[in-house]
Every structure is written in structure tokens, then in C-alpha cells.
């Protein structure tokens, strides 16, 4: 019962926070709500025995990406933002479409069948520690994708600098 209650709290709060993110007029508020949301997601990861990912979630998303968003928001004229129209004129269509797709997703959820379980039981991960276990998979089976990911980050750095630098 307790885990279900726990999950219920997380689910309700996360949905509410997501809604807050997309509806707030002031982008700074959106970012702050998103920060809270990310902490909750990290909590959910802990709940699912993914300690390493929880840490990454906080460090990377909350620590880096959201700060980046805040920096960019500082460049804009917030006063104008506060008076401008938030939504597009056709927003009911968007909401209706979203709800329809959601219904389809729920409808198809009953058809999910899971494959055979793998070798990483909770006990096995606990014995090895989560970070070590995930590192093993990452650096053996997924070594090449890992290297490619580093290349993508490099390109992103270069691209961001080139795009944002002053002209001339």
C-alpha cells in the first residue's frame, strides 16, 4: 500500500507541475516549476533503484540545462511577455488532439506484453552497485554509441558557439 501511495503522490504532483510548466505566463516561473518537476523525476528514479540516473538527472537537467534556459530568458523583455497572449488562437484543437492521442495510448496499454526478464535483478545490481553495473554495460556493449554521443556533444558545443557569437 505504501509504495502505491508514494507513487500516487509523485504522479499527481508531477502532472500538476507539468501543467504549470506549460501554462505559466512568466517563463521564469515555468523554469522554476520545471526544476521542482525534475527533482520529483529524480525521486521516481530512486524509487526504481536507478540511483546513478537520479544523480545525473539532477546534475545535468536541473544543474545545467535549466540554468541555460534561465540565462537565455534573462536576455528577453519580460514586461512584454507578461502582457502578450500566451496561447495560439487554435489552442482548443491542440488540447483536443493531445487528449485523443492520450486516449489511444491508454487504450493500447492493455496490449503491452513484456519480454523475458534479463540478468540484472535488484539483488544483482545491489551487490555490484548501480553505477558500476551501468558503467559495465555502457563501456562494453555500448562503447561505440558512447563515443558517438561524445562527438554529438562536441558538435553541439561548436554549433552553439558559432550560432550565438557576435557577427563580424
Amino acid at each position, binding site marked *: 500500500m505504501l509504495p502505491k501511495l508514494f507513487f500516487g503522490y509523485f504522479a499527481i504532483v508531477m502532472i500538476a507541475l507539468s501543467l504549470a510548466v506549460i501554462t505559466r505566463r512568466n517563463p521564469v516561473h515555468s523554469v522554476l516549476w520545471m526544476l521542482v518537476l525534475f527533482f520529483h523525476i529524480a525521486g521516481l528514479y530512486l524509487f526504481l533503484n536507478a540511483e546513478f540516473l537520479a544523480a545525473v538527472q539532477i546534475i545535468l537537467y536541473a544543474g545545467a540545462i535549466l540554468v541555460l534556459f534561465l540565462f537565455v530568458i534573462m536576455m528577453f523583455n519580460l514586461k512584454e511577455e507578461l502582457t502578450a497572449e500566451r496561447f*495560439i488562437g*487554435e489552442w482548443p*484543437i*491542440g488540447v483536443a*488532439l*493531445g487528449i*485523443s*492521442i492520450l486516449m*489511444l*495510448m491508454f*487504450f*493500447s496499454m492493455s*496490449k503491452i506484453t513484456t519480454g523475458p526478464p534479463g540478468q540484472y535483478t535488484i539483488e544483482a545490481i545491489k551487490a555490484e552497485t548501480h553505477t558500476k553495473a551501468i558503467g559495465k554495460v555502457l563501456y562494453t*556493449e555500448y562503447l*561505440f554509441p558512447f563515443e558517438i554521443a561524445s562527438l554529438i556533444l562536441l558538435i553541439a558545443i561548436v554549433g552553439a558557439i558559432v550560432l550565438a557569437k557576435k557577427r563580424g
Partner: protein
Amino acid sequence: MDKYVLIPLLPLTAFVINIIFGKWIIKEKAHWIAILAVLGSFAIAVSAFLEVLSGKVINYDVYNWIVSGNFKVTVGFLIDQLTAIMLIVVTSVSLLVHIYSVGYMHGDGGYYRFFAYLSLFTFSMLMLVMGNNLLQLYFGWEAVGLCSYFLIGFWYEKKSAADAGKKAFIVNRFGDFGFGIGVIMIFLMLGSLHYTEIFGKIGTLQGQAINILGYNVDLITLIALLLFCGAVGKSAQIPLHVWLPDAMEGPTPVSALIHAATMVTAGVFMVARFNPIFNLSETAMNVVALTGAITSLFAATIALVQNDIKRIVAYSTVSQLGYMFLACGVGAYGAGIFHLYTHAYFKALLFLGAGSVMHAMAGELDIQKMGGLKKYMPVTYWTFLIASLSIAGIPGLAGFFSKDEILWLAYNHGTVGKIVWAMGTAVAALTAFYSFRIIFLAFHGTFRGTHEQEHHLHESPKAMTMPLMILAVGAVAAGWVGIPAALGGSNAIAHFFEPVLGHPHVTAAHEEEYMVMGISIAAAIGGIFVSWIFYSLKPEIPKNLAVKFKSIYTTLWNKYYVDELYDFIIVRPVKWTATNILVAVTDGKIIEGIVNGVPAAIRNFGERLRKLQTGYLQHYALSMALGVFVILTLVLIAKGR
């Protein structure tokens, strides 16, 4: 990580280094990196070959490429007898061509680019021959095609070169389309792409048929023919041979490496590799044999009258590739690969010799404007002569043994075999004739070019003549591993291939073998003799013949009008449809007609349609979400049934 991985990895590294740093840092030193890499590959290939020779077969997976459910693709290497010999051919010819290019491409603006592409090509070709699964073969197959496109169009400022590159690429698409379907069918039917699993399970498909448009088609025949489709494109067999002669627009070392010695033989390699599949379908085998024989004869006749030195050699390549397919088609895979291996040396030598002549003649290709080059470029002359003797099938040289093996085994293969044997023997005579036509016209007699050209004549630099001499040794000695028993040899290479490729059962006696051999030697010597009379003794004879049989001559001169035919039945209808139906009728009449016919409804609809292109990001997002919704609904309905 062990040494076999390095065989393809070294050229890949050279490619990456040259393509990234070549333009600014390495520049004129690009060849060092490329040559060292290929040299390393060659050394490892030799050691792998020695291991295979001692009976070891290497087959292992290096890396899981794609794992998705029961679909699993690995990057793995299979080095057996067949691969080992291909490794030697690819790396050794590639090495010599790299060295030759140092002299040939000297001073070209794209020097680093050229060596980068050569390395990339070597890598792709090695991946193709070393793969232990079909998808890796397919990867290499497409990658060598891409490199070939890059290198044919290397001088892309020249329109003819750019066009030839496109032509090669597009013509190959036709063949690769069939090949791709073949690969998919193999996976669908057998559930695996690994060679060992395919060959292990292929027998279970025997006798099964598949229904296509109401016809029952034997499954194995279908798969074999689809695979052969790819081979027809890549190895320039009829009807997809049109790209190879045009490919000669590329730099000559490229013609030697890619369009003579290695890439175009990939089709033969593939057919030999899949011999367990082909062996199960007699229809497919006969198609392979006849396609090979017809192509061989067809290309040889065209080569008789051409004047462009590189085109003659190119048609001779098409013809010799036909020979190899002929061999595969009669079940003599070993002989086919043996010919592939000897052909690589003498044909690369012919091309590099032609390049050396071009170098001296400042790019002139017309053999009618040459003559008497013997005294200006002795090394080129002697090596070219050796290669010509070898391709003509003069006893003792490499070409003789492989050609004789093919003809002998064809002779032993029932009715179809007898037919292709007769065609093959005719081709042997024609080959001798046109090969020596080059020798007599270009190297003997008196010089027929301009004075400036004559003044400019010189032997090529060391970097170019040295590979010629090494290849000449190959053109002489490469065949000595396959001296047949009838001549007191042990035919070592046939026994070497036997575990992978099998060896057809020969019933006929030695006497018949001597007869077959005698006929082919007579054909070769006859061809040379006629060529000598025509082009050295009485040069007026060919001119008179050309006048007398004008229609035949022009047909041959225009390569049987195949290009014109394709232009007529494919290119023009497509263009015509585009301009006259799609533009004039569909756009002009139908669409405008509807718009004018029901203006009110259309205007209303058009206004709404225009609204979709509002430029608002959100509207595009909304329509995308709508699409997702529709597709999801359809999928769920289909699954729910």
C-alpha cells in the same frame, strides 16, 4: 582486439587522417599515410593467408552492430580459403596502385583527396570480402560503389567525368535493387544473415515454391537470381555493362584498381561465396553461365574496333569478367576465382601500362595516333607485352592456366557447358587479337602523332615503372600455383579451394584435356597472328574490311547501340513522360481544368489549404499530431483485428 581487425582498420584510419588533415596539413605527403596503411594490411593479410594455408579457418564476431528482437547483425570476420586469396589480391594490387599513383597523380590539386578515397575504397573492399554475414557484405558492396562514384567523378569539373560517375551509380542501383531484395528474402526465409547459418539451413528450402502473380517460382532459384542481379550490376555483365567503359573517365590508377582488379570482381566473389545456394538451382547456374558467356563474346567483339586504349582494356575487363561467371555457372567456382586472381595482376598491369602511355602522350588515348612507342618507353612496352601475352593465354603465363582450367571444366559440363566452351574459345581468339592490336598499333610501327607529342615522349618515373615490373612478375608467375595434372603439375590452387568451393567431378580423359588445351592455344596464337598481319604486315586489310562490312563495323564501333537503346527505351520515355504528361497534361490540363471547372469549391478548398501554410510553427505541429493520431488509430485497428 586481434590483428585481423587491423586489416580493414588501417586503411580506414588513413582515410580519416587524410580527409580531415589532408587539405591544410598533410597535402603532398598524403601518400605516405595511405601507403603505410595498405602495406600494414598487406603484411597482416599475408600472415592470415599463411594461417589459412596451414588449415585454420578464422570466423568470429567483433562487435554487435544491431540487436533487435531476433534480428541480430554483427560485425564479424570470416577468413577462409576464398577470403584469404581475395585479401592477397586486394591488398597487393591496392598497394602497387597506391605507389603508382604517387607518380601519376603528382601535382594534381586533389592529391590528398585521391589518396583518401583510395584508402576508403580499400577499407570497403576489405570489409566486403572479410564479412561473415550478408549485411556486412552489403555494406561493403554499397561502400565500394560509393567510392567508385567518387573516383570516377574525381575530376568533377569535367562534365563527362561527372556524368560517368552518375551513370555508374545509377546503373548499379538496378542491380543492387535485386540484390537488396535477395538479402531480405534470405533473412525472411532463414531468419539469419550469418553465412554459416544460411548455408546450414538453405537445404530446408529445397523444393519450396513461392507464388508471384500466379506463377509458381522455385524459391532457391529466385533467391539465387536476385543475388546474381547484384553481381550483374557490380561486375558489369549484360545488360548492365554500360557503366564500366564510361568509368574510364576516372584517373587511370582508379581504373586499374577498382574497375579492373578488385571492385568489379566483387560480383564473382559473391557468387562464389554463395555457391551452396547456386548449386541447388540448375536454372540459376545456367543463367549465370550463359550470361557470362554472352557478355564475354559481346564485349570482346566490341573491343575489336575501338580506338581508345582505355576503352579497349575496359571491354576486355567486361569480357574476362564474363569468363569468370561462365566458370561459376558450370560449377567451377575454384577456376573462376583462380581466373579472378590471375586477371587482377595482368589487367592491373594493362591499365597501369595504358596510364603510363597516356602520361607520355600528354593524355592522348587514341591508339591510331600512337605508334613506335617501343623505343621511347621500353619498360612500359615489355611489361605491356607480358600482360598481353598473359591475357591472350600463351602457355606458361598466368592467364593460360586459369583460362584453360575454365574451358576444360566447362567442356566437361553437359550441353550448356559445351555451348559456353565454344563461346569461350572464340573469345580467347578475339582476346588475343585485340590485345595485340594495341601492341602493334601503339608500340610498333612509326609515330603518327604531332611533333610536340613526339618531342614530349619519355619513359615514366620510377614510382610508375616499378609497380609495372612487379605486376609483370605476377602476370607471369601467378598462374604457376594452378598447373593442371595433365601438364605434370599438382593444381595446388584447386585443392586449396576445395573445402569452400568444391571441385566439379571430371570424367573425361587426359587426351580430351590435351585437345581442349590445344584448341585454346591455337586460338590464342591464331588471334595474335591475324593481328600481326592486319596491323603490322598489311595495314590496308582492316581498312578494306571496315569499308566492306560497314554495317557490322559501325554496329561494333557504336557498341551494338546499347547506350542508344537504353536512351531510347528508358531515358527518353522518362523525360517524355515528365515533360509531356506530368508537366503539360497533369499540371496544365487536369489540375488547371479542375480549378477552372469548379472554381467556387476549389477556391474555398484552396483557401483552407493555404491556411495550412501559415508559417506558424504551431500549425505544423498540430498537423503532425493529427498525423500521429491517425496513424496510431489505424495501427490499433489493424492490430485489433
